[in-house]
């Protein structure tokens, strides 16, 4: 499979009165065409910030301070605001966490799909776009799409709203969909339906999906490859099978052992002692060091991300093979 997206040494910092928060600090990974690439980690580990930084959707006090985001060979971070806007919603589409707040309450669901079509296809009449919106609503398995297109968000259920949001994201047949916790705010039964829908659409349109989640069950169910993040850093990248059967990083191991049943949610990982570090006073060296039971003197230096076996990358001194 060929490469669709390559992120190199991405750094996003937030400049607050309290200090500089290095929310994403040197993250690198690649996403291949047609796969489902998942990013997992606890709340605040920088996974959402990474996702948004890909199309420069970072607002003050946040700033992208370094790195490259190569999408089909172009560095998106070098594009002007005008150029990047043409990519958002067309080549790279987003699905946000909470469908209830992602939709504008004052416009109908049909209109909100249609405007996404007209903005990226100049010359399209709104009337035609609205017709197309009904087709899309049918595609995302909304019953009675003609009527639903005329409904306002408050008239739809949570699951239906998320289908509309998904409809918006697929409306221009994007190459990459970035789904940021698409199922978190939904009921468990609806979660499964929405995941199935995403899979179906991926097959139908050949879209690549980047899935951001803290739910390991969802990861196991749909992903091809997984990246684990901790405190703004990549700790491990592997294909889903390897990650679940042979996790190497102590944090990944903790994550997995914390969830005996991978279909359970992990809002908080209890078996790993300690807390996610305060992002302003980050521990020196390996950021997981204070909570790690294997930590030694060498962990005071920052571990590199190295490939321990083909396609399996980990950032931990235990696997560097070098001396103490």
């Amino acid at each position, binding site marked *: 499979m060929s490469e669709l997206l390559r992120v190199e040494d991405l750094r996003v910092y937030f*400049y*607050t*009165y*309290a*200090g500089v928060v290095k929310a994403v600090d040197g993250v690198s990974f690649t996403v291949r065409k047609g796969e489902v690439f998942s990013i997992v980690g606890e709340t605040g580990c920088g996974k959402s910030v990474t996702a948004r930084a890909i199309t420069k959707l970072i607002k*003050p*006090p946040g700033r992208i301070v370094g790195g490259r985001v190569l999408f089909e060979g172009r560095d998106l971070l070098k594009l002007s605001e005008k150029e990047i806007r043409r990519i958002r919603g067309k080549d790279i589409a987003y699905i946000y966490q909470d469908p209830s707040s992602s939709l504008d309450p004052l416009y109908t669901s049909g209109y909100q799909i249609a405007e996404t079509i007209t903005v990226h296809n100049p010359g399209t009449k709104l009337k035609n776009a609205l017709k197309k919106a009904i087709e899309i609503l049918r595609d995302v398995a909304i019953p009675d799409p003609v009527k639903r297109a005329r409904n306002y968000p408050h008239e739809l259920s949570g699951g239906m709203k998320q289908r509309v949001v998904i409809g918006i994201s697929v409306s221009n047949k994007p190459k990459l969909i970035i789904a940021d916790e698409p199922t978190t705010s939904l009921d468990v039964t609806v979660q499964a339906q929405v995941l199935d829908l995403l899979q179906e659409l991926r097959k139908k349109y050949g879209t690549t999906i980047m899935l951001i989640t803290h739910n390991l069950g969802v990861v196991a169910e749909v992903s091809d490859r997984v990246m684990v993040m901790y405190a703004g850093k990549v700790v491990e990248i592997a294909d889903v099978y390897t990650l679940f059967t042979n996790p190497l990083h102590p944090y990944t191991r903790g994550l997995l052992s914390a969830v005996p049943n991978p279909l359970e949610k992990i809002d908080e990982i209890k078996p790993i002692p300690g807390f996610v570090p305060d992002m302003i006073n980050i521990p020196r060296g390996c950021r997981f060091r204070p909570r790690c039971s294997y930590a030694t003197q060498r962990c005071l230096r920052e571990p590199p991300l190295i490939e321990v076996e083909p396609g399996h990358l980990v950032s931990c001194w235990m696997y560097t093979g070098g001396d103490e």
Partner: protein
Amino acid sequence: MINNVKSYIKTWKQRNEAKIKEWRLMLEVFKRSPLALTGLIFVTIFIILGIIGPYITPYDPIKIEFSTMLEERLQPPSLKHFFGTDEYGRDLFSRVLAGARVSLMISLAVMAIAIPVGLVLGLIAGYYGGVVDEIIMRITDVFLSFPGLVLAIAFSATLGASIWSAMIAISLVWWPGYVRVVRGQTLSIKQSLYVEAARAIGVSTSKIIRRHILPNVITPLIVLATLDFGSVILVSAALSFIGLGAQPPTPEWGRLIADGRRWFPEKWWYTFFPGLAIFFTVLGWNLLGDGLRDILDPRFRRKIEFKEGGK
């Protein structure tokens, strides 16, 4: 003994660590807000003048000195009379200082009537709901269907022109606003999980109100009352200005402006300084209220903590 006190203070500090931290943070936010500090200074000056003003005036603010009246009347501001003199030769600086007391008295009286009434009715309406709520809120709505000043004029005109009737009239107009705020706040807290849990385990109503609802109602009430202090002063000055409210020879700011208009603009100081006094007093309350709102609103406080520092 001293050790006992020390250890008591220590344990008290430990027990209330979270609260102390919160107060520190509030103080910090307050200190960072020059506008709120300015407001506090204005308000403090106003209150002090309201209490001691009539005792420190350089001249008698009310008595007319007929022997010197003719040469002293309508004199422009000078070192002798900072704000000039009125048509009876009275020192306007003294009259403005003394006027602080009238404004303070009226606004305090209005707050002392309107806040308890609003608090009690709002708590009842919000907590018990049903028919009681319906009745209280309909009455409240009717009062709020008038611009406050207009209704205050109607009441005041009915009760006769005097400071007392102005106080009653403004109080009658002012309580509904508090009912609405208290009721809204009570309703939202009543539905919160911890209050429902407290009720489920049989905590008494009075205790729930005292422990859970009141503390949450007080905060927005304080902010609103601070902002309203200024509005009450404006309304009472307006009543006096149109001839209701304080009557001569009482030195009241609105009344002074009305009297001074006859001589405007040649004797500009007569209207100018009383107006300035009203303006700075009301501005003080509004600055303070605005600052308090920032401090007491946790959402806003967080914003300040994480306000953009870098570029």
